[in-house]
């Protein structure tokens, strides 16, 4: 073995390429060209005898480690051999005791790789990640089983029997004051309608009118019964009334929400599955009475005209006491129906009614529009929601609870209204497996009810302001935001599926009230004309003898707008653009569409700002003479 040192490498240590090729990246990033990765130069410059130097170089090369690791190992081996030589060992002894190069290189490689920071970090991360996952998974499993026990051992508690409460109120009405049995009788006496029809198209002298004249004549008994029923003070319908069975069959009203019989047996009848046939029946009655009123005007029968109109307004009155939004909307529709024969009367046969009859009718229209009759009644909505919650959440005795298995059955019944529930056995099992997780994520009973009440209270505060003071719909906007939020969709499923947005209903009540206002003013103007031989120059003179107050324009809060056009009264509202455009319609579209466009509410903040867009909305909402009825 040679004791000579290795010759130095021939490449120049000053060359830029050499330096770049032998500088670690970390040094380059610090702006230093250290060229310290050159193993051969390190070994050659170590001063070790050739045999030991070759041993070091060969061993290190065979480790196949990263270059910096190789340098570290080489430096240590060089140091080791130098220590040996300094201690008096010969280079032959040191080389002989070194062992097999391939084995040494392999063992060093294996040991050094264990030292790599990345390996340690990855191993530690994987270990900790696995531990964390195990903890999380265990917690989830435990939570799932806790929730499953809570869900499947908890039971709903029906603390309020809403059906019984509603029925008790109806049954407390003396039989002779209950209109519903008489309406039902009238409906059962009704001959079939001539053909499918669009009600707004039915009017004297329009195509098909003669058929409806015959129809009204054939149904004199039903009309008489409807008149009798309308004279009674209250509707008095009873939920799940067995006497309605034949009527339901005739009206084609199915029991639209079918709660599985097992549930209803266990948890008393629920308002959720109640059917309300009165809305369909009273709508039909009002259509027939409207036709009869047209006929009476045409035939010059003042008594019958007054009787028909009075009955129509009384039906609206009866419905307005029903505590359901849908009942209120039917009342608004009936009101709208009643305005149409009045318009026909004032145009075609204005002298049919005497001054007193005109003023009495005016008073009736004014009353229904301004005595809080046409408004959103949330009693029924709250009852429906509370009844659903008390049957689909468990109860811990303190008013709180979580979703119960009954939730699945009720939700299924509501989702598949009018259809057979599509829940297969497999789906049913899957739903039950998911329910504990769902219950865990869903808000509890107390929070759900509190959130519902909060939204309802805020909606009421917004919607019960006069239309001209309404600016935004914060509560409904929040509801919309919740609909768009995936977490909220889980947390508030019950709330989101069952909370109605009532702003449209509230607006339609304003439309109906404004139309009834116009009708009241038009009748008062006719009475004034009868006495003075001309219409007044302003509405102020009508108050108080002809009308208690001038009704407000629902869009600006000021008196309803009035002017004479060709000697005839024109009543209008400024409409959605809140600008008085002189009682003109929006240009460029048919009159009924223009009028509808002008009346459609737009929040002040969304009103157009550009001149071109403002022009498209320039026009008023014509109230009298009616252009179209608005509510169908």
């Amino acid at each position, binding site marked *: 073995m040679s004791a000579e040192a290795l010759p130095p490498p021939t490449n120049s240590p000053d060359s830029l390429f050499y330096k770049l090729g032998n500088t670690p990246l970390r040094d380059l990033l610090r702006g230093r060209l250290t060229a310290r990765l050159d193993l051969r130069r390190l070994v050659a410059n170590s001063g070790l005898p050739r045999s030991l130097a070759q041993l070091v170089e060969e061993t290190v090369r065979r480790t196949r480690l990263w270059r910096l690791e190789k340098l570290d190992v080489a430096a240590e081996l060089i*140091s080791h051999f130098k220590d040996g030589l300094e201690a008096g060992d010969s280079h032959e002894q040191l080389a002989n*005791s*070194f062992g*097999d190069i391939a*084995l040494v290189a392999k*063992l*060093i490689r294996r*040991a050094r790789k*264990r030292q790599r920071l990345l390996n340690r970090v990855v191993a530690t991360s994987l270990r900790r990640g696995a531990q964390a996952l195990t903890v999380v998974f265990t917690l989830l499993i435990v939570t799932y089983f806790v929730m499953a026990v809570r869900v499947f051992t908890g039971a709903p508690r029906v603390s309020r029997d809403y059906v019984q409460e509603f029925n008790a109120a109806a049954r407390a009405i003396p039989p002779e004051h209950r209109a519903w049995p008489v309406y039902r009788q009238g409906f059962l006496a009704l001959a079939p309608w001539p053909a499918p029809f669009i009600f707004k198209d039915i009017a004297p002298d329009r195509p098909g009118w003669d058929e409806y004249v015959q129809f009204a004549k054939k149904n004199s008994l039903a009309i008489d019964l409807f008149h009798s029923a309308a004279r009674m003070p209250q509707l008095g319908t009873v939920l799940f009334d067995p006497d309605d069975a034949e009527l339901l069959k005739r009206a084609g009203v199915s029991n639209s929400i079918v709660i599985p019989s097992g549930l209803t047996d266990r948890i008393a009848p629920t308002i959720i599955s109640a059917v309300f046939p009165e809305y369909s029946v009273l709508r039909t009655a009002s259509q027939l009475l409207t036709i009869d009123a047209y006929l009476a005007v045409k035939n010059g029968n003042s008594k019958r005209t007054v009787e028909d109109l009075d009955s129509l307004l009384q039906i609206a009155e009866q419905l307005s006491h029903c505590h359901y939004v849908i009942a209120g909307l039917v009342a608004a529709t009936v009101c709208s129906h009643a305005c149409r024969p009045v318009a026909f009367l004032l145009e075609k046969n204005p002298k049919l009614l005497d001054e007193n009859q005109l003023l009495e009718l005016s008073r009736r229209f004014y009353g229904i529009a301004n005595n809080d009759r046409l408004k959103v009644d949330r009693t029924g909505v709250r009852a429906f929601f509370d009844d659903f919650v008390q049957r689909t959440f468990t109860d811990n005795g303190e008013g709180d609870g979580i979703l119960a298995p009954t939730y699945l059955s009720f939700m299924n019944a509501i989702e598949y209204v009018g259809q057979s529930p599509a829940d297969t056995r497999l789906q049913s099992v899957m739903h039950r497996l998911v329910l504990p997780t769902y219950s865990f994520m869903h808000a509890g009973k107390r929070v759900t009810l509190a959130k519902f009440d909060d939204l309802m209270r805020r909606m009421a505060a917004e919607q019960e302001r006069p239309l001209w003071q309404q600016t935004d719909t914060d509560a409904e906007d929040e509801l919309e935001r919740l609909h768009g939020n995936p977490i909220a969709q889980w947390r508030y499923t019950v709330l989101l599926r069952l909370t109605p947005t009532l702003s449209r209903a509230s607006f339609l009540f304003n439309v109906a009230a404004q139309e009834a206002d116009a009708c009241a003013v038009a009748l008062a103007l006719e009475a004034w004309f009868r006495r003075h031989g001309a219409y007044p120059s302003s509405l102020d003179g009508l108050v108080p003898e002809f009308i208690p107050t001038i009704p407000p324009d629902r869009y600006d809060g000021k008196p309803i707008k009035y002017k004479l056009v060709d000697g005839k009264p024109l009543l209008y509202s400024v409409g959605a653009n809140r600008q008085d455009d002189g009682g003109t319609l929006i240009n460029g579209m048919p009159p009924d569409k223009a009028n509808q466009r002008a009346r459609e509410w737009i929040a002040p903040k969304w009103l157009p700002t550009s001149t071109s867009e403002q022009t498209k909305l320039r026009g008023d909402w014509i109230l009298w003479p009616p252009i179209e009825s608005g509510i169908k």
Partner: protein
Amino acid sequence: MRIEKELMRGAGPAAVLKLLSRGEMYGYELVEALSKRTDGVLAMGQSTLYPLLYNLEAKRLIEGIWREADSGRQRKYYRLTKKGKGELAKSAKQWTSLVETMKSLGVVPEPGTAG
């Protein structure tokens, strides 16, 4: 006497940890100390020592530090970590227990008895 490879694999780390418990040492010094203090029984060449040191370093039982020696050369010194001290104590107990067991079996003769 040479120790079987498998036995060496268990004894080597404990011996190195024990030597380092008295103060820091460098590679060649450890080779020499193991050879002299064990009468060559635990003598190990570089092929065994350096992988062993690197393994102990990877387990954080020892740490190596490059430092200038008295001679002016750079040398890598090893010293025991806190974790290494704990491991040495554990190892010592295990070896004591093993020796006692071997004694009770007669594999290791009791002092003063003929083997």
